[in-house]
Every structure is written in structure tokens, then in C-alpha cells.
């Protein structure tokens, strides 16, 4: 019986980590549903942007209030989690504050954790106020209904509770308070429990300890379902972020091959394929569903924090159009999840469900409202490129469906006929010289 808590702890820990691992596997599988792109280039430059943007939060501070608060929560969260190591060892081996033996350093560490915990708590409250009382515009746009809105608040409640439990655990720890080293914050909470018997205090301390670690495991498993996944994916996502100038749109190789064939007088486009070679399936141009996007674009979708910085700078959205780059990312993730569940339910094979990203999630009206201005890409604190998805879907509309707006079709016909988007003769190109 003596080992019951230890065994219970081990079971909970294994279950928590096991379920998380299972979801990580699913996540990776879903991301790999995307088309392949080779991003093994420029390793040092990529590490640099990851260090600057994800680790160094360089883009967060462009909006100073949110940026600084976010850095507190981010640092606090990472640093306080060092304490989890002690909790796990204590839990598994039935020890109590195993590291306290290291003396003054321990006091210093826990003291720092306590200060951070308080700072995190306060920051999270401010975040909550910004969302729910001040109602910052970007948190109340059309796509921020039900789940996305609740998700944002749940995370804040989670953090409030976890920080409180950590401080209460320390405050109710008679032993730790007696040491009087490191209880920088908790010493002010301890008096609240002044009249309690030692037994009650022990019960509170144990309770807080258990809730704290179970809370962390629940939180870990909540990530997969939440925008909070960014705390993990921000790192790979910034690593694989676009390095080329923002104005450079990718070259479609499949088109290049066809254009070369058409332009090369030595190739007969109607010739039968050479013996033994399969006639190549013409590749689908552009994207109508998530599988047509690249794996980086799918990684982008899972990384999106739904912060809305992109949308709040988007000229189309600012002038009341339906387009919202954040919604593009959220739709992509939702559809990808749907496809993933479909695969799970059908023994690893995707069964056509009569739905797709284009039309069922993202409308053509949204796609055609984009000015390709790159404001969203510039604003995103975790290097997401919503514009690339918009472009890929336009490509599908135009090249697979010939479904561009009429005016654009006219413009393109002009280019084909006379090399300019207007119906002027190419022979008049130099007329400006003498006007």
C-alpha cells in the first residue's frame, strides 16, 4: 500500500505522455499529407531565423504591450517547468523536494520560479482583460466564434490555475516555509493557512501538488486540439519559414516543363511517349484541398496562434471584405483535421467525402479580394505565409477551372494577344517617347 501513490503517479504520467505521443504521431502524419518541398537548404540562416523569431520573440515586440507580456508568460512557462523535473522524480520515488539538498541555490531557483509565477499570473490576467473587457478588435472578428474564442480563454484559465497551484503548494508546505529560503511570494500566502492543523496543511500541499502535475499533463494533451500548439510548432515553423524576398512567389515546375515543351521546336508535343515510359499523369495545378498544399503550408496551419495580427493589417479585411488571412489558416487546419479523422475512420485510407477546402471552407470571394500585399506575412509573429495558400488556390481556380473573374479573363486575353494587360497594340509601346 505504501507504494500506491508512486504507482498511481507512474500510471498517470505514462498515460499523459502516451496519449500526447499518439497525437504527435497523428500530427506528423497529417502534415505529411501535403506535397513535398525540399527545404534542406540554408541551414545556418534557418537556425538564425528560428533563434531570432521563435526563441528571441523578435516579432512579438513589434506590438510592445502584447509582446512584453507574452515574453513574461513564455519565459515563465519554460523556466517554471524546470520544477516539473523535481515533481516527476518526487512522484516516482516518493521523495519530497529531492533537489532541496543542494542548499542556497535551491532557494534561489524556487524563489525565481515564484516571482515568475506571480508575473505570469498577472500577465495572463491582463491578456484576459484585453480579450474580454477591452475587447481588442482582432479577437472579435467573424472567425473568432465559439471554439476559437473559448480556446483562447481556456488557455488563460489553465495558466491562472497552474500558477496558483504552484504557489499554494509552496505556501502550504510547512517544511519549505520553515526553510525560509525561496518562499519569496508564498510566504505572503502562507498566513492565509495560519489556523490550519499540520494535517490539513499537508492535505492542501499534497492536493496542490497532484493537481499541479495532473494539470500540466492535461495541458500538454490539450495542445493538440488548441491554438496553443504554437508553443511547440513555432520552432520548426520559423525554421522552415520563407527566406526568399517576400515578393518572390514560387515557380511551378510542372508548368515550366509544359512551357518548355511548347516553346521547343525540337519536341513534338503530340508524339507518343517513348517505349517503356508511363505517360506522366498531368499534375494538378494549384490547390483545391489540403493535400494539394505543401507540408510547410500545413505546418503553418497547425502553428497559427489565431492572434489575428495578420488580419488586423490586411487591407481587404480593413475595408470590410470577407477575406481574413487568419481564417485562411484556421480553415486549412480544420479541413486537415477533418481529412485526418476521415483517414483514421477508414483504416488509413482517405475516403472521398464530397468536401474540399475550396468552396466548403474558403470561398472564391475571399480569394479574389487579396491584393498580394504581404502585410499578413510581415505581421505574423511565427513566420506563417497565408498569401501562399491564397495564391495556390487561385492557381487552381484559373488553371484547372478557368474560373477567374471576367475582368481578369479579359486582362489575361490582352496579355496573350498583345503583350499588355490592356488592348493596345504592341507596335505602340514606344509612343510615349514623342507625346
Amino acid at each position, binding site marked *: 500500500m505504501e507504494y500506491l501513490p508512486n504507482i498511481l503517479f507512474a500510471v498517470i504520467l505514462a498515460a499523459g505522455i502516451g496519449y500526447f505521443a499518439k497525437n504527435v504521431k497523428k500530427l506528423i502524419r497529417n502534415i505529411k499529407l501535403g506535397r513535398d518541398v525540399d527545404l534542406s537548404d540554408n541551414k545556418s540562416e534557418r537556425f538564425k531565423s528560428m533563434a531570432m523569431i521563435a526563441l528571441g520573440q523578435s516579432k512579438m515586440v513589434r506590438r510592445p504591450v502584447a509582446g512584453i507580456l507574452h515574453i513574461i508568460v513564455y519565459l515563465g512557462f519554460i523556466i517554471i517547468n524546470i520544477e516539473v523535473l523535481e515533481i516527476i522524480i518526487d512522484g516516482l520515488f516518493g521523495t519530497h523536494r529531492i533537489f532541496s539538498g543542494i542548499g542556497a541555490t535551491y532557494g534561489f531557483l524556487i524563489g525565481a520560479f515564484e516571482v515568475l509565477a506571480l508575473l505570469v499570473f498577472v500577465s495572463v490576467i491582463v491578456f484576459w482583460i484585453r480579450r474580454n473587457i477591452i475587447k481588442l478588435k482582432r479577437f472579435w472578428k467573424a472567425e473568432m466564434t465559439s471554439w476559437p474564442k473559448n480556446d483562447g480563454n481556456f488557455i488563460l484559465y489553465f495558466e491562472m490555475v497552474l500558477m496558483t497551484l504552484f504557489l499554494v503548494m509552496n505556501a502550504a508546505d510547512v517544511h519549505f516555509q520553515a526553510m525560509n529560503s525561496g518562499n519569496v511570494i508564498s510566504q505572503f500566502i502562507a498566513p492565509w493557512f495560519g489556523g490550519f492543523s499540520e494535517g490539513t496543511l499537508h492535505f492542501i500541499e499534497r492536493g496542490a501538488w497532484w493537481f499541479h502535475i495532473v494539470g500540466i499533463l492535461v495541458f500538454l494533451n490539450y495542445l493538440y486540439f488548441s491554438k496553443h500548439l504554437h508553443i511547440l510548432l513555432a520552432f520548426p515553423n520559423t525554421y522552415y519559414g520563407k527566406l*526568399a*524576398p*517576400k*515578393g*518572390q*512567389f514560387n*515557380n*511551378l515546375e510542372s*508548368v515550366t516543363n509544359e*512551357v*518548355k515543351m*511548347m*516553346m521547343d521546336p525540337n519536341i513534338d508535343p503530340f508524339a507518343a511517349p517513348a517505349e517503356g515510359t508511363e505517360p506522366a499523369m498531368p499534375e494538378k*495545378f494549384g490547390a483545391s484541398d489540403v493535400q494539394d498544399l505543401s507540408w510547410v503550408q500545413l505546418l503553418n496551419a497547425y502553428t497559427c496562434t489565431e492572434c489575428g495580427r495578420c488580419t488586423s*493589417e490586411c*487591407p*481587404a479585411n*480593413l*475595408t*470590410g*471584405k*470577407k477575406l481574413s488571412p487568419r481564417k485562411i489558416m484556421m480553415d486549412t487546419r480544420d479541413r486537415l483535421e477533418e481529412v485526418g479523422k476521415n483517414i483514421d475512420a477508414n483504416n488509413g485510407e482517405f475516403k472521398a467525402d464530397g468536401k474540399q477546402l475550396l468552396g466548403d471552407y474558403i470561398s472564391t470571394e475571399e480569394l*479574389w*479580394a*487579396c*491584393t*498580394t*500585399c*504581404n*502585410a499578413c*506575412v*510581415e*505581421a505574423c509573429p511565427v513566420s506563417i505565409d497565408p498569401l501562399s495558400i491564397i*495564391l495556390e*488556390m*487561385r*492557381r*487552381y*481556380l*484559373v*488553371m484547372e477551372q478557368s474560373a*477567374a*473573374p471576367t*475582368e*481578369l479573363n479579359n*486582362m489575361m486575353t490582352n*496579355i*496573350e494577344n498583345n*503583350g*499588355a*494587360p*490592356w488592348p493596345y497594340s*504592341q507596335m*505602340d*509601346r*514606344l*509612343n*510615349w517617347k*514623342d*507625346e
Partner: protein
Amino acid sequence: MSEVLKVPSMAECMAEGRQPEILFWVGSAGSYDDRAKKITRAFVKILNKANVDFAVLGTEESCTGDVAKRAGNEFLFQMQAVTNIEILNAYDIKRIVTACPHSYNTLKNEYPQLGGHYQVQHHTQFIDELIQSGRLKLERENTFKGKRITFHDPCYLGRANDVYEAPRALLQTLGVELVEMKRHKKTALCCGAGGAQMFKEPEKGDKDINVLRTEDALETNPDIIATGCPYCNTMMTDGVKVKEKDADISVLDVAELIANAQNL
């Protein structure tokens, strides 16, 4: 009919057996759009004044395909690109200067994958270089000195290619009072023309983007709104008209400011 400009074509240079220092890529707007043609002429006046040995493709130039690519027609874009690259490479072009940020971006960033490798500059960068190297001398005493001017960053020059300083440096040389809009450089708001929007009606909304951007500019209380893109120029000019400010505020390209300041 204004004064005669020296505008040699590549075909003429070829016939004379010489290679000009730069190719001036005029672009479709610069060739056909009445407002943009004035910018083209202003830039050529500067080139003539500084005795720059340049040439244009003239009737051999064709749309870069930028707008087709952004509309999603990669096919048409690549056809245009390959055709242009064939001509550029046949003339052995090394350096290109253009007054259109869209051409600039496409030539510089999207032609290399299709076999077109050139050193490409926006006209503001090139003019800045002419001044730095002493080839072009500007009078500090000029009609624009002390005027309040705000600069609208074209998306395809600024955010797309991180060129923010060259146009501003030129305005500074004119001794103007440069006032920045709240959203400028990296956070500049689009004029609403990019991504093929220039050629279609906007989607349903509650405002036109160019009006919103003009409001940004008007907040700075400018005498002149300067920009560096023919499409931005059209959008801002229309915006100023909507706001009924066209009697007091003009929209000018940086090249026009320089040419006018020097009475070219």
C-alpha cells in the same frame, strides 16, 4: 508635343554594335497608361541629363507577366517570362532599371528560375546611385524645398523587397520636409492595386482600399503625396479625388519630383 527625348532602342544599339550601360524596362503601365507615361518621360529626362548610356526594348518589350502570376495564371506568366528572357538574353542584357516595382520584383526574383539572370534596380535606387557617384547634380534650391511630402511605400518595393531608403534618400536631397504616415515602411498599407486588383472591381466591402490609404496620407497634412509605382500613383490620385483634395494635393512619382525640381 514637348521637347525631344533621347530614347535609343536595343535594336538600334545592336545595329551600331554597342552595348548600353543599362536597359530601361518601361513596363506596360509606363508604356500605355497616360498618367504613367509622364513618369516614364520624367525618368528619361533624368537619364538624359546625367548622360546615362541606356536603351529600351521598345516594341520588343512585352508584359512581364507579374499580374498573370498573381492572378494565378502561372502558365501565362511563364510564357511571357520565357519570351522576354529570350530577347533579353539575345541582347546579352546584364543590368535592368525599371520605374515599376512589379516589373522590378518579377525580373529580379522570378525570372532567374526560368533562366533570366540580371542585376535589377528600381529607378529610385538607380537615381540615388547617380547622385552618390556625382553623375547627377541636384540643386538644393528648388520648387519643392520645404514642402511637406509623405511617401507611400509600394508593397512590391517595400515589404516585398525591403527597399525603403532609396526613395526617401532622394526626397531628402530635395530638401523637402518628409512626413511619415502612421503606417509606413514594413507596416505600410497597400494602395489596393496589387495582385491583379487593378484590373477588376473590388469585392463587396464597406470602403475602397485606396480611399483608406489616402486617408492615412491626408492625416499627415501633406502638400504632395509621393510614391514610386505607376499603379500606386493611379490609386492615390483617385483617392485624393474622392476626398476632394485634388485642388490642393498632388500625387507625384519620385522621378517626377526630381525632374520637376531641376526644371528638366
